[in-house]
């Protein structure tokens, strides 16, 4: 069962909100709704977030992403549609049930931290446990642990205003983690932080996610942040979700021009992975074959070296043209094979392929956990992976500029 399911969520502000939704459902444009004096914020948003997933909603200011996240925990009731949390309808829950779901299932981290200035750091972190009715001694202990987990020790008895921005958001994160809910909603949680601290917090979030396996719905206007964090990303524009997919899907197969323009500026080398650019390994020799077969294959493929794999496709080593041509009489390849020192995994970002690629004269071998050869990346492929970016950027340079100026 998905942790979060959003079913056709609409949020329209104004007195004629319901009529606005009716117009939108009938296929009318935003402008038609604005004309009757209503303001559409979120239009027909449907998605589901699986347990343990980081789902990022990405959009510029005014795209409705903050309204969307507030519908997930019921801070804003949707004008139409509903939200299910582990199969339970949150939108139609009674106030008492809504509070129970929030206490047990969902915590939230806020853009401007929203720490209570009149409480100590420890009591802030313990707030969720307090609403859950956990006893004082236990909640202080658990809050202290959460603060430590977020890398904040020794500040328990200070007030939030004595802390720097990054430290405050650690408290915000600790408050959400201490509550020990399944779902974490993060509303532009790192947007108010300096770039370096933001990077740091992103790394830490990924690490925590590996450790704790929370389901995270993360809102951001920073595409690089979305690509770094998101298992999947929903791109929002003017209240509508225009595409949902992994970072690579959005980058390589944008749903429309808007998304294409948007991703034009992304550092592709951080998003694309070895697995997405590798080519099928053609110049490969079975381990049981001899130098003559190797030499023949090299001439056919115009390669000066070959990878050798076993029957289970495990990478055994490689042979070079020099080695085989001087030892054609050898019955097999034993003794001629050289050890492979440089391999990469399918999930290695392209940015980290350049150094290994420079270290070897052969195409980079991509292997899985069991040393099986998945594919190879010749230097040419690596370079052309970068080239795609320039193409898109030139095509849509002018409008892309316009769209990103108000980030």
């Amino acid at each position: 069962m998905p942790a979060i399911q959003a079913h056709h969520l609409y949020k329209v502000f104004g007195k004629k909100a319901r009529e606005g939704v009716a117009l939108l459902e009938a296929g009318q444009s935003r402008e038609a709704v604005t004309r009757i004096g209503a303001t559409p914020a979120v239009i027909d948003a449907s998605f589901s977030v699986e347990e343990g997933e980081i789902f990022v909603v990405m959009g510029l200011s005014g795209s409705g992403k903050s309204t969307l996240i507030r519908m997930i925990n019921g801070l804003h009731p949707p004008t139409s549609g509903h939200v299910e949390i582990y199969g339970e309808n949150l939108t139609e829950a009674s106030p008492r049930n809504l509070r129970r779901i929030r206490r047990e299932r969902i915590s939230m981290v806020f853009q401007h931290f929203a720490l209570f200035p009149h409480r100590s750091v420890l009591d802030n972190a313990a707030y969720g446990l307090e609403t859950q009715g956990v006893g004082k001694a236990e909640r202080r202990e658990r809050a202290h642990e959460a603060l430590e987990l977020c890398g904040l020790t020794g500040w328990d008895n200070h007030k939030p205003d004595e802390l720097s921005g990054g430290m405050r958001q650690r408290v915000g994160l600790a408050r959400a983690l201490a509550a020990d809910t399944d779902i974490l909603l993060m509303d532009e949680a790192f947007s108010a932080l300096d770039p370096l601290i933001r990077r740091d917090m992103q790394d830490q979030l990924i690490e925590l996610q590996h450790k704790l396996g929370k389901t995270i719905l993360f809102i951001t206007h920073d595409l690089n942040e979305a690509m770094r964090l998101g298992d999947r990303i929903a791109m929002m524009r003017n209240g509508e979700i225009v595409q949902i997919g992994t970072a690579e899907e959005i980058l390589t197969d944008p749903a429309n021009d808007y998304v294409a323009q948007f991703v034009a500026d992304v550092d592709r080398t951080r998003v694309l992975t070895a697995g997405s650019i590798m080519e099928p390994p053609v110049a490969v020799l079975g381990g049981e074959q001899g130098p003559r077969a190797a030499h023949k294959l090299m001439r056919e493929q115009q390669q000066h070296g070959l990878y050798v794999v076993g029957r289970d496709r495990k990478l055994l080593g490689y042979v070079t043209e020099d080695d085989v041509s001087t030892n054609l009489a050898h019955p097999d390849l034993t003794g001629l094979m050289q050890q492979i020192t440089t391999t990469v995994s399918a999930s290695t970002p392209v940015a980290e392929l350049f150094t290994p690629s420079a270290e070897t004269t052969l195409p980079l071998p991509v292997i899985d956990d069991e040393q099986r050869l998945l594919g190879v990346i010749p230097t040419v492929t690596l370079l052309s992976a970068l080239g795609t970016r320039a193409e898109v950027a030139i095509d849509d340079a002018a409008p892309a500029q316009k769209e990103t100026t108000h980030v």
Partner: protein
Amino acid sequence: MSEPILHPLNLMPRIHLGDGVNSAVDWLTTHWAPFFNGIGDGLNSVVEHLTNVLMNAPIVLIVIVLAAIALISRGIGTAVAAAVGLLLIDSFDEWGSAMQTLALIVVAAVIAIVLAIPIGIVAAKSHVGSLVIRPVLDFMQTLPAYVYLLPALFFFGLGAAAGVVATIIFALPPGVRLTELGIRQVDVEMVEAGQSFGATPSKVLFGVQIPLAMPTIMAGVNQVIMLALSMVVIGGMVGAPGLGQDVTSALTTLNIGQGAEAGVSVVFIAIYLDRVTAGIGRGEPSPITKAIRFFQRQRASATATATAG
């Protein structure tokens, strides 16, 4: 009553608001007499008891207590100034009147604050409440004080109660307005933080909104007290005892000297109350809290260096 046309250019027919008010006051004084008498007696006896306590206590004791309050809320300078001012009041021979005035203010201000804060909360929480309450507050604040001073006299008779009621009406509005403002000004994200962790509305109100609105609410309390003081003097006209009566009698007998002494005493009390309540409202730690924190920090750093060494 005949209807002489005073002004041939009158556009509107004459609406007899005054007659209506007269008969309403008549009706209330006859039919609701036990109610108003009860309130009046209650207020009178509370004021009387407090006045007795203040007047029977040794002057030195009261000066020390009030100076100590000033010390806690503001610091040593205000405490010294308070002591000097209070002793000057005694030297003007206005001590008794000043204590009567103080008793009136305390009773009126406490009642006004107790009423104002919940009304302010309702106004902040409910849009309709705010729409209804706001014009009533405008009315209370701008209606000339003398207009309701006389009905108060009818309902409660000559004495402290009429003065207290008139004071409450006059002093209440800023308490309500600033409570409403304070709560409305609390950052939406803070309220959302409370709600998102599953806090009940009352827990959000008392755990988040009111603590964060406290500086503004205390500014309202300060305004209530200051307005109460200015009204208590006017209340002297309806027989409320204290400095107000001294000022009124000095004016009627053209005794400028006595008027000055009573007036300056009012100013001293006013400044004292303003500084003390503003000190509480600043949200800053008092000098004593600061001192305690300083010593705690000293001890903490001492133990830290001890363990480090």
